[in-house]
C-alpha cells in the first residue's frame, strides 16, 4: 500500500482533489465531512491520508506516508537537507506564494540585501541590539541571509500577523509569504529588489527512504503513468 498525504482542509485540499481528478485519479473524503478519512478511485493500492499541510514534510521524511502534497516552502523550512529526504515529483501550479524580505517604505536608503546589511550594521551600533527580522521561516531566512553574507540581524519568531510587527516595534523588518504584496503595502512595507527567498507552490513529493518495498515502487510507477508525470 502506498500512502498519499494531502492537506486536510481548505483551498489547498480542494485544488489538490481537482488536480488529481483532472488526471483520472479521484480523491475524496469518505464518511462524514468532519472525519479525516479519505478514499481513492481510479488506481489500486493507494491510500489517502488527510493531514495538516505543515505536518506533511515531517511525515514524508519519517516514512509514515510515501507521497505528499504540500507547499515547497514548508518542505524547505521543516526538513534540513530536504532534497536528500524527499524528492519533487510534480509542481502542481497552484498555491503559489513568494517568501520575501520586506522593510519599511520609510527606509528609502534600503532597496537591496546589500543595503539591508549596511543598515543592520549601523542599527546595531545605534541601538545596541541586532536588527530584528520577524518570520516563521527561521531556517529558510537564516540560510538565505548567510548565503548572501548579511550579518548583524536576529530572527524574531512570528507565527501570524507578521506584517504588523514593524508598526508594533517588535521587529524592524519581516520575512513572510505574499502572493500580491497588498497586505505589505497596506502596512507600510516594501519588498527588497533581491529579497525573494523562495517562490513556493503546491508540489507533489515522494519520500526518499530506502525501505520501500518493490510493490510500493511499482505502485508509484503506475500512479505516475496515470497522472502523466513520469
Amino acid at each position, binding site marked *: 500500500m502506498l500512502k498519499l498525504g494531502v492537506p486536510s482542509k481548505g483551498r489547498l485540499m480542494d485544488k489538490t482533489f481537482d488536480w488529481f481528478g483532472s488526471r483520472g485519479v479521484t480523491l475524496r473524503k469518505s464518511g462524514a465531512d468532519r472525519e479525516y478519512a479519505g478514499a481513492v478511485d481510479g488506481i489500486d493500492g493507494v491510500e489517502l491520508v488527510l493531514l495538516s499541510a505543515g505536518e506533511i514534510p515531517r511525515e514524508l521524511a519519517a516514512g509514515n506516508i510515501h507521497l505528499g502534497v504540500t507547499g515547497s516552502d514548508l518542505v524547505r523550512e521543516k526538513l*534540513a*537537507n530536504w532534497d536528500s529526504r524527499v524528492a519533487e515529483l510534480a509542481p502542481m501550479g497552484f498555491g503559489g506564494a513568494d517568501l520575501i524580505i520586506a522593510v*519599511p*517604505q*520609510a*527606509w*528609502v*536608503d534600503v*532597496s*537591496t540585501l*546589500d543595503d539591508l*546589511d*549596511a*543598515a543592520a*550594521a*549601523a*542599527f546595531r551600533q*545605534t*541601538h545596541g541590539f*541586532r*536588527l530584528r527580522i520577524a518570520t516563521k521561516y*527561521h531556517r529558510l531566512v*537564516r*540560510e538565505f*541571509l*548567510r*548565503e*548572501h*553574507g*548579511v*550579518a*548583524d*540581524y*536576529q*530572527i524574531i519568531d512570528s507565527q501570524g500577523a507578521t506584517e504588523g510587527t*514593524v*508598526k508594533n*516595534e517588535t*521587529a*524592524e523588518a519581516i520575512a513572510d509569504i505574499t502572493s500580491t504584496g497588498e497586505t505589505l503595502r497596506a502596512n*507600510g512595507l*516594501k519588498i527588497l*529588489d533581491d529579497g525573494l527567498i523562495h517562490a513556493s507552490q503546491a508540489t507533489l513529493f515522494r519520500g526518499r527512504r530506502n525501505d520501500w518495498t518493490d510493490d510500493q515502487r511499482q505502485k508509484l510507477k503506475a500512479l505516475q503513468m496515470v497522472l502523466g508525470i513520469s
Partner: protein
Amino acid sequence: MSAPFMTATTAPATLAEARRLRDLFAAKGGQVVKADVLQSAETLLDLYGEDIRARAYLTSDPLRGEMVLRPDFTVPVVQMHMESHAEPARYTYAGKVFRKQEEDETRANEYVQVGYEVFDGSDPAAADAEVFAAMAEGLNGLAVRASSGDIGILMAAVSGLRTTEARKAALLRHIWRPVRFRALMKRFGSDAVPPARAALLAADDPFAKAGPDIGRRSRAEVAARLAALRDDATAPPIAKDEIALIDAILSLRETAANVLSQLRDIAVDMPAIGPAVARLEARLEALEDRGVDVAALDFEGSYGRTSLEYYDGFVFGFYAIDRPDLPPVATGGRYDALTARLGQGRAVPAVGGVIRPDLVVGLR
C-alpha cells in the same frame, strides 16, 4: 574525572586517548580547567549572530534566557581567564562539545575535544609555534598533514588599501564572509553607482515616496545613511592593482616557505602588510626551532576564512592523509580579537588548539 566527560556513549579508547592528550598538555604547563555543558548563549549570539543557530544547540530557559550546549571550550576558557587576570597562563581541558550537523548527517553531533590554550603576549610567534607543536606532538605517529593560513595578512592588506575608512570597515566586517567580501570589493572597485542608488541620491526630496515612519529605525538614521551613501558615491574606486594584490593574497596556495617569499614580493607594492609578513616570518622561524618541517607545511591565503571561529591571525588544521572524508583531526589558531570583545576592551593575546581523540583512535 568530571561527570560530563565520563559519558556512557564515549568509547573507552576515546576516553583513554583524551586522558593521554590532556596529561600531555598538562605536562607542558596547562592548568586543567572545566566548563559547564550549558552556557549562556548571549556571548555566542553576540559574536556570531543567527548563524550560530545552524551550528549549535540553543534552547531557552524561562529564567536565564537563551542557553547553548557548549559548541567549544574557547569562549568559556577566555571568560574564565579574563576574570582571573593571571598572566601568562596555559590551560588544558577535555570534554564533550555539541555541534548541530544540518548539512552532513554522517558527522558526529557530539564528540570529545582536548584543548591547549596559551595566553601569553610576551612572544606571539613563540606561542603560535608552541601550540602548533603541542598539537603535532599529540598526533605523533599518525599519517596527518598540516595546513595553515594567517587571517592577519588579509586584514593588514585591507587596512592598507588606499580608500575611505568606511569602505575599509565594511570590508573588515565581512572578512569571514567571502561572498559578501567579494561583492564589496567588486563594488568598491568600480565607478558605477547602481541605478536605483543614483536616482535616490539625485532626488530633490529622497523622502518623497517614503510612506509612514514606522518601526524603531528612525528617519534620522535613514538620513545618516543617505549622507554616508553620498560620501561613498564621491570616493574614487579602489585601484585595480590593489584589488589584484588582495586577489593574489587570497589565492596563495603553496608551502609556507614559498608563500613567505611571494608575500615579500607583494609587500613591495603594499607596504601595509609588512608587519604581518614579518610576524609570519618570525612564526615560521619559531616553528622551525620547534622542529616543524616548514618546507612541507601548506599555507593557503584563504584558510580559516569560512569557519565560524574568531581567528584573526595564525590558523591551522591537521588532516588525515588517507581519509579526506574525515573532518580535521586537530584545529587551532590565534584569537586576540575574541579576547578583546570578551574582555570589554582588555585584550590578551591568545592562541589555542584542539584535538579530537575519537578521530585519533580511529586513525591508529
